[in-house]
Structures are given as structure tokens and as C-alpha cells.
């Protein structure tokens, strides 16, 4: 799933997500593929749909709160809501090439 790019604010909002890093891997939530969708309505209200690499991620609340804060700081953004979803589940296929390179993982993606 890719964030919708049909609103002029979306690129700036995605950039903001690129500045929220996973504290362990040093990869942004955007490059980890955690941001599923960003919707902006005509009033500027933002709804970000994101997931975590695991339901049991101990930094989950910090990351979702961090995304909310980062999005709120984007000029022109209205009220922000962050929805955390588990479907579809995150898979390594969602990592961007940059994230894979940073992790030293460039093998073809296979899941058992």
C-alpha cells in the first residue's frame, strides 16, 4: 500500500515521516514501510494509517506519537489522527532499497 499523493500536502507529510526514526535500526518509519496511507481532507485534517514491524514493538507508542507530532508540525496541516493497523501485516518487502542497504540486507525477500 502506498500513501496517496493526490493532495499537495502529502509529499511534505511524507518527508516529515522520513524524519521519525526507529531508535534501534536508524531507519525512518517511511523507509521501513510503516506508513500505509496519508489522507488529507479539504479542511487540511490529516489521517495517517501506519503499522509497526511487530504487534509487540515496545517503541510502538513512541513511534505513533512521534509520527503524529511530526505531521502536526508540517505547515498547512490541520488536526492529525494516526490510525495504527495490523492488516495488512508488515513484511520485509515493504522496506525501501535504501533501508535494505542500511541494514545490510539485500537478498531477495522470502518468507517461510
Amino acid at each position, binding site marked *: 500500500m502506498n500513501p496517496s499523493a493526490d493532495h499537495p500536502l502529502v509529499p511534505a507529510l511524507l518527508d*516529515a515521516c522520513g*524524519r*521519525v*526514526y526507529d*531508535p*534501534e*535500526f*536508524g531507519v525512518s518509519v517511511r523507509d521501513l514501510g510503516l506508513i500505509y496511507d496519508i489522507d488529507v481532507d479539504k479542511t487540511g*485534517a490529516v489521517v495517517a494509517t501506519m503499522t*509497526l*514491524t*511487530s*504487534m*509487540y*514493538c*515496545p*517503541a*510502538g*507508542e*513512541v*513511534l*505513533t*506519537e*512521534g*509520527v*503524529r*507530532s*511530526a*505531521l*502536526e*508540525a508540517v505547515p498547512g*496541516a*490541520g*488536526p*492529525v*489522527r*494516526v*490510525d*495504527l*493497523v*495490523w492488516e495488512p501485516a508488515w513484511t*520485509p518487502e515493504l*522496506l525501501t532499497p535504501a533501508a*535494505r542497504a542500511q*541494514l*545490510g*540486507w539485500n537478498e531477495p525477500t522470502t*518468507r*517461510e
Partner: protein
Amino acid sequence: MPLVGGGRLPLAFIGGGALAFVAAAGWLALVARQGPPVFAHPAVVAIAHLWLPGFLLSVCLGATYQLMPVVLGAPPRLREGWLWTHAGLHFTGVALLVAGLAGGRYLLAGAGGLLATGGVAVLVATTLRTFLVSKRRDAAAWSFVFAAGWLLATVTAGALLAANRRHGFLPLSTLDLLRAHAHLGLVGYFATLLQGVTFQLVPMFTLGEARRPRLALAGLAATQMGMPFLAAGLAWGARGLALIGASAAVTGLGASGAAFAATLASRRRRRLDPGVRAFVLGLGLLAAGAAGGLGLVFFEVGAERFFALAGAYGLVVVAGGLSLAVLGMLAKILPFLVWMRAYGPRVGKNPVPLATTLSSRPLEELWLGAHLAGLALLVGGLLAGAARVSAAGAALLALGALVWLANAARVAGHLRTRPAATRATPASSPVASISSHESLR
């Protein structure tokens, strides 16, 4: 899942455990200078208790109080005050226990053991209540329950051992009871906990997946089935019973090891940092120790050789396997906890460092090298009867502990970071929400 006690409770347990580690390693170096550590000497028994319940258990308790709510998806089902009571009972109890054992004041040691047992009761109650509201039933979830149960059995056996030594109401040898007490703790508590939390922590820190979960659960179950036979066989000196128990426990550990290997192979972060490397080395040494322990039960040797081998077995398992596994994971958990407390609230508002940058990589490498070299010399010297080699090994181990503490202090120093003024944020709409908390339950 919010940090338990704002992260203060896990950090208090971990901080106390870290100090006990350095004190125990330093004490061991002093004792080793006076000759090879003699099995069951009061100082050696005291060091063992400073190392095991003082260092390893304290750290595991801190990690448990942080990790259990994450794994079970529910906050601890006991008031935070009770958890702090556990911390108080635990550290007071261990201090009295160690002081009593070192000075041969067994009443003091008994009082300490009683206080520590009270703390374990709090852990058992918290674990059971939290487990019952959780739906998760994999190896990670079950390991908390089994480990807490075996920990209660360990402290109870310790109390029985102390009481029997004074009053002699059970026709059991003190040495046999000591072996049962030790294995209840080593295999029942520590190994059981590792058989579960490994499958939570390793994927978390390597961006991998918990692979072969059924094998992991089967491994945990086999160890649990073996434990009663092992403990009873050791306590009553029934070799056949101990063999059955040890074989089942080692088979279980092997199955968990195979599931761990598959899990580690699934990692997306390919390069292992010193913390994860120490953890993997620790598990390898535990496997070697388990095989050695099985050999000690299977093959009969002369008394002198037995004590040298038993000493080496204890060092490989405790100072090697368990300590490296616990310190390795601590090298990951401590920076993460400190980061969550110091920088978590700033994420998305201000630039923050990564958790992995809080510690010093050169210090971590130096500690790991010193610990491994020290252990090799200590064990080699003990087996060869070379007291000077053992003393050099113990000194190197203590040096490694100091390096480890310096790095931990560097990490903890970030707690002094003052929170930056929070930027004014636009007013949220009535529907604005963060749904993560509910979703995690």
C-alpha cells in the same frame, strides 16, 4: 505499551544488578589471588549468590517487568507499589544473604533469603495475573510463568537447604540439596526464561522473525518436563532420575537452540553488534555447559576430578553462558530503556539520537574480549590446576566488568538530559486519537 514505572522500576533492578556484577567479579578476582576457588568455601558461595541472585536475577527481573507487559500485551496486573516492594525486598534480601553466607552467619542469610522469597512471591502473583488476562500462548508468554514458578521453587529449596543444614530434619546430603537448588535456578529459571524471551528479543533487535515457533514451544515443554526429575534426582542422589531429567532438559534446550538458529537466520540486519554477538556466544556456551553437565551425570569420575569439572561447569554456565546472554541483551535493552525515557517524548518534535548511539562500540568490544579471555583463563587454570592462570583470568574478568560498567554509566548519563520545551501543537480535533494503546492489548 508504556514503560513500567516510567522506566524507573526496570532501570532500578538493572542498576542494582550491574553494581552486583562488578562487585562479584572484583571479589572473585580477590579470592582467586589467594589460590584456586574452593568449591563450597563461604566466600565462593557468597560470590555465587552475589553473581546469581544479585547480578543475573536482578537484571532479569528488571527486563521481565519491562518485557512481560509487551509480550503479554497487558500492563502488570499488580499495583506499581507492589513491584517497588519487590525491588526493596529483593535487594535487601540479597544483601543480607550474601553478607550472611560470607561471614558464616546463617541466621542472617536465612533472613535475607526470606525477604528475597517474599519478593519472588510478588513476581509470581504479577506474572500469573498478567498471563491470565493475556491471549498470547507461545514460548515467550509461557516462559514467564514457568520461570517464575521455578524461581519460587529455587528460593524454597534454598530455604530448605539452609534449614536442613541447621536442624537436619531431612535425610538428604547438603551437597545434593545444593545441586538441586542450583539447577532449579540455572535451568528452571534462567534457561526457561531464555527459551522464551529469546524469540521476542532477537527478532526485535535484528529485524527478524520468530521462526519454528512450535519447535520453540516443544523445547520449552521438554525442559519443563525434565526439571522435576532433574531436581528430585539431584536432591535425593538418585542418578537414574537425574539422568532422565537432564536428558529431557538438554533435549528441550537443543530444540530451542534449533528454533533460535532459524530465527537468527531470518534477520534483516545482517551484521551482529557486540550485544547480539555476546548473546549468541552465551547461548553457545550454555549449550556446551549443558552437554558438560549431562556428562557429569552420566560418567563417574574421582572426587578431586569431579570438583574441578563441576567448578569448570559452573563457570562456563554462570560466568560464561548466562552472563554473556544476559549482558548481551542488556547491551541492547539498557540503551533502549534510557532512550525511551530520555528521548522518547521528543520523537517527531526535535532531532533525537538513536538508541544504538548511546553506548560506546569500542567499550562494548573491549568488555566482550576481556570477558571471553578472562573466562577461558579462569576455566583453563581451574582444569589444569594452575592457580596463577585462574587468578589472571579472574582479574581479566573483573577488568571487563569495569569496562562494562563504564559503558553502562555512559548510557545512563543520558537520563540527565533535560526535556526540551515542547512546541505548541495545533489543537486536535475531537476525533483525533492515537489508537496504538488499545490495539496493543
